[in-house]
């Protein structure tokens, strides 16, 4: 047996046995284990294959920086790749699968890459897959794609819920180790609102792995006691399993809480993860420090791990990482690990100390090799021994685990995410947190403090500083005494010379010292270039263990201080955050809401086919029995509107209520045409321009009283028009008394059009709506038979006698039903937006097909709507520019095919008859086209150079995309009733 579970000790519950599987094989662990600790307890050191060379790998750490032990957790839709076994909380039935191996973890075919590694150095891909270019798409890319990526993502939909939440506090403490606990305790007792968040599932951090005593009791018990007290404080919120992953502007922190990731059968009442945005007045970074691996030959063999990790497995999980453990160190951490292992009866074969001397106490009976180094390791799936070297003398030392310590790097990521760079300290041989102002400070080992006692003191001191800044006067907290602590200081050692095998810097991406040297030789010397050329620091762990070593080694290669090399850029997220958490509830219809009109169910029961229009679902046409194509339905609807009457849902048009004594003046400045003298009870078609003189939107405005208008906008521009009105009123003319509110969703609006519209409407409306009493462009409140108040507008998009009736949304369906009943004898039909479109093209009315952000009022034949006698309106000044008034501008015309059976398609380009298709010969394009049942052939609206002068000319409608040429005649854009006689019936 190599690694094994101790008979006693650790923060695990030996009474709660848990079954789990790795690659189908069943293992047993205990409540309180991580997946990694349970695997080690089962003597399963081999956990993964490395990315590039497929080398066997074990665990290197016991925490979130783990680069090696990546596994897929769960199955089916819940399978999650690249989970770090070191932080996965064990639960009963957990199913893990190893990655990046075939056919099995032990026998991996991909390991052949390791043999070819001399050819696979940094930049291999850039150099190899360059030429010949023709091979790229067929051979190189598929090859690279197959090799790329770690783990496999499931293609099934995520079955779990996620949510987002805000939290507010006076003090956020990030990390619940010795420093964080003391900070939270000091602040919590003072009564301010504290949030204490920790990525782990048990608070205590390094105290849980500590053999020293704090306040006269074991460190873990001290931690438990503090947590117990914090839990009783109503002003303190404890957030375990919560990673604070980002620091953003205005002291907003991003955090992800893994609510149910550790639960065997998740409850559907709870989210799987919760994304928090924490607004904190002050924050303390108490994230501790990361132990650096030493960079020596064969340092990636399973069984080589940081000394701190070996200590954590021993003291927290009751697992001996080996039966015979060797230690390679440049500081006190290695000695403490050896002592702790000895105390639990584990054989320690030797301490190899890179330093010539040290004051660290040597445990009795352990062999110590000072000024020594490890140059190679033996074994394949697990370390079986090492070659130690001192002054040219080599010897083999047997071991089945090797604990290494290369010193400590404060975990300063969060403080560097907003542009500040970490600061190199020669004294501490580490990059320290930058000064980012008093609101966010580092404490404890995150601030470079060395000993446990110092961390406890610093946590409490920084909390008091925060309390002081928040205006709280409190008694200082007594810091507990620490007994038996060790000195974690170290001597710098970036690279161990004499390596016989690859010496890895970035374990996950298989970057070794040789690659860093190659990058320097080939000119990729800046640390950001070195990173990208070698991929050091680019894996899912983002170089948590490797980046500082990379900087140190590159500094050594160049003969400068690491201060001169610096670090790469720190960005959120600290550890990976799932897309589920980031999306929160914004999935499916919550991401893209479905908007339905108040007449949606009326349309549905009348058999409508719906079409998506932005978020809206609009009734497109209403097929009847026997109709095989949409055209048949649309043709029937159009002809029926022209002959009898039809009812169309126009509720999706934007509706804006406008109030105020300044409303008339305001509208006069917003629209290009005049609105000042619009009488009460009347509607007017209006055109809005952008400030550059181009048409923005069109619609109607109706004056319901002296100080109340209702404006309609196009469906697509409803939101933009409202914002435009608000912007204009608030920033240009705040002196005008005018207010707006959108009422699009409050009104069901329907258009009743056709020669029989009045007869039908008069059966529904009480008021007199004869042409004399309610002429074209009348707009008034009316009373429906039955007493309902409604708004009636005599406006027409179809060119027929038409009314738009608006009723409160909840009455929409009943009123539409009543109109259909009232019109039954007259042959009323429901018609959709397709028929509406045909009707408007026949009538030559423009929509955003024509008002496409490039056209002026004159271009689309609405030049008469430019009331240039007004002193000012939006867009007036620039509308007179030469370019917007030039004679060769595209102008709106109609087109009809010379051969009546030819089809014209929108988007086709216009050419002079006989001209070659080219940009130079382009004469314009077709903006709208449809079959006109009224005319009996296709018709189109088109934008044609100087079009209005060219009526009668033959023009080629060229559609190169769909391969059609149709010779057409240029004609006026109004195909039906050019005299408007039908409007005034």
């Amino acid at each position, binding site marked *: 047996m190599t690694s094994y579970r101790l008979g006693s000790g650790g923060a695990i519950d030996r009474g709660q046995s848990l079954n789990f599987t790795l690659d189908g094989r069943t293992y047993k662990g205990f409540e309180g284990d991580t997946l990694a600790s349970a695997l080690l307890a089962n003597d399963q050191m081999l956990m993964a294959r490395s990315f590039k060379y497929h080398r066997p790998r074990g665990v290197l750490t016991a925490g979130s920086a783990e680069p090696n032990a990546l596994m897929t957790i769960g199955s089916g839709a819940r399978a999650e790749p690249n989970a770090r076994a070191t932080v996965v909380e064990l639960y009963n039935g957990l199913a893990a699968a190893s990655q990046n191996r075939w056919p099995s973890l032990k026998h991996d075919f991909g390991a052949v890459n390791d043999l070819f590694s001399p050819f696979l150095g940094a930049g291999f891909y850039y150099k190899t897959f360059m030429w010949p270019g023709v091979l790229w798409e067929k051979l190189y890319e598929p090859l690279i794609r197959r090799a790329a990526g770690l783990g496999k993502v499931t293609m099934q939909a995520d079955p779990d819920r996620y949510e987002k939440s805000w939290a507010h506090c006076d003090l956020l403490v990030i990390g619940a180790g010795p420093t964080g606990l003391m900070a939270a305790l000091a602040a919590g007792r003072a009564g301010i609102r504290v949030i204490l968040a920790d990525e782990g599932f048990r608070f205590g951090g390094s105290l849980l792995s500590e053999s020293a005593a704090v306040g006269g009791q074991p460190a873990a018990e001290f931690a438990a006691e503090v947590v117990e007290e914090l839990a009783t404080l109503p002003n303190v919120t404890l957030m375990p399993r919560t990673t604070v992953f980002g620091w953003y*502007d*205005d002291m907003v922190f991003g955090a992800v809480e893994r609510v149910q990731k550790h639960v065997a059968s998740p409850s559907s009442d709870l989210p799987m993860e919760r994304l928090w945005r924490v607004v904190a007045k002050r924050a303390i970074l108490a994230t501790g420090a990361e132990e650096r691996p030493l960079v020596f030959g064969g340092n990636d063999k399973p069984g080589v791990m940081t000394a701190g990790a070996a200590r954590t497995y021993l003291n927290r999980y009751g697992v001996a990482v080996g039966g015979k453990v060797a230690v390679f160190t440049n500081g006190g951490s290695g000695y403490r690990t050896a002592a702790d292992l000895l105390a639990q009866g584990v054989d320690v074969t030797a301490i190899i100390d890179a330093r010539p001397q040290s004051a660290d106490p040597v445990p009795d009976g352990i062999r110590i090799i000072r000024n020594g180094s490890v140059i190679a390791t033996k074994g394949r799936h697990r370390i079986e021994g090492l070659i130690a070297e001192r002054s040219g003398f080599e010897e083999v030392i047997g071991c089945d685990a090797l604990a290494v310590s290369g010193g400590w790097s404060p975990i300063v990521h969060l403080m560097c995410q907003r542009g500040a760079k970490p600061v190199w300290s020669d004294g501490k041989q580490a990059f320290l947190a930058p000064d980012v102002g008093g609101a966010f400070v580092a404490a404890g080992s995150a601030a470079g403090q060395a000993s446990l006692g110092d961390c406890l003191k610093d946590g409490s001191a920084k909390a008091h500083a925060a309390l002081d800044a928040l205006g709280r006067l409190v008694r200082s907290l007594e810091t507990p005494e620490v007994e038996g602590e060790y000195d974690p200081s170290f001597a710098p050692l970036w690279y161990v010379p004499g390596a016989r095998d690859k010496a890895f810097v970035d374990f996950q991406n298989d970057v070794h010292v040789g690659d860093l040297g190659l990058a320097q030789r080939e000119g990729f010397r800046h640390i950001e270039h070195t990173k990208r050329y070698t991929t050091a620091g680019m894996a899912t762990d983002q170089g948590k263990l490797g980046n500082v070593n990379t900087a140190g080694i590159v500094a050594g290669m160049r003969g400068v201080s690491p201060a001169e090399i610096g670090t790469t850029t720190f960005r959120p997220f600290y550890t990976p955050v799932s897309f589920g958490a980031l999306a929160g509830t914004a999935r499916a219809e919550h991401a893209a809401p479905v908007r339905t009109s108040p007449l949606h169910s009326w349309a549905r029961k009348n058999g409508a086919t719906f079409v998506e229009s932005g978020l809206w679902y609009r009734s497109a046409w209403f097929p009847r029995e026997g109709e095989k194509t949409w055209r048949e339905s649309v043709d029937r609807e159009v002809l029926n509107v022209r002959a009898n009457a039809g009812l169309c849902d126009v509720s999706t048009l934007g509706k804006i209520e406008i109030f105020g004594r300044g409303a008339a003046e305001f509208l006069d400045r917003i629209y290009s045409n005049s609105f000042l003298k619009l009488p009460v009870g009347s509607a007017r078609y209006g055109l809005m321009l952008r400030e*550059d003189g181009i048409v923005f939107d069109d619609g109607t405005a109706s004056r319901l009283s002296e100080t109340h208008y209702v404006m309609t906008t196009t469906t697509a521009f409803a939101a933009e028009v409202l914002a435009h009105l*608000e*912007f204009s009123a608030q920033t240009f003319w705040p002196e005008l008394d005018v207010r707006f509110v959108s009422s699009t969703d409050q009104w069901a609006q329907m258009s009743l059009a056709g020669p029989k519209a009045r007869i039908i409407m008069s059966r529904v409306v009480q008021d007199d709506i004869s042409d004399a009493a309610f002429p074209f462009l009348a707009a008034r409140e009316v009373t429906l038979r039955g007493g309902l108040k409604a708004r009636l507008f005599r406006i027409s998009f179809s060119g027929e006698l038409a009314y738009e009736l608006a009723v409160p949304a909840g009455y929409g369906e009943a009123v539409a039903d009543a109109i259909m009943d009232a019109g039954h004898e007259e042959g009323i039909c429901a018609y959709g937006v397709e028929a509406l479109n045909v009707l408007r093209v026949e009538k030559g009315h423009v929509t955003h097909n024509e008002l496409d952000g490039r056209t002026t009022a004159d271009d689309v034949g609405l030049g008469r709507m430019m009331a240039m006698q007004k002193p*000012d309106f939006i867009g007036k*000044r620039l509308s007179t520019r030469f370019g917007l008034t030039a004679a060769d501008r595209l102008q709106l015309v109609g087109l009809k095919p010379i051969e009546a059976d030819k089809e014209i398609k929108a988007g086709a380009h216009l050419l002079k008859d006989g001209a070659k298709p080219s940009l130079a010969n382009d004469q314009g394009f077709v903006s709208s086209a449809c079959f006109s049942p009224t005319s009996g052939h296709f018709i189109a609206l088109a934008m044609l150079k100087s079009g209005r002068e060219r009526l009668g000319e033959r023009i080629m409608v060229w559609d190169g995309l769909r391969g059609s040429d149709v010779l057409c005649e240029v004609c006026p854009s109004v195909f039906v009733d050019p005299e408007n006689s039908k409007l005034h019936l």
Partner: protein
Amino acid sequence: MASLITCPHCGTRPKEEFSIRGAAAPKRPSPTAKDETWHAYVYVRDNPKGRYKEYWHHVAGCRRFLVVERDNLTHEVFGVTDASEFKRAGAAE
């Protein structure tokens, strides 16, 4: 950018409630102003580094246009005023 904007009407709100409409400094010229003045107003914008006044529309709140004065390098926000106040203050200058 800022994470939080203190709206003078609604209090401190997350930035997701706002939409940004660009520089607040340019003033809409009089209808009789020169071509160059209008061209500059419609098409030309400074792209300063540092302190900057910008329109923020509180679309998911009071729907007022606000003038946010902020540093686009450090993201510090110096002040938020209602656009109409800003206009009036400008007129008084």
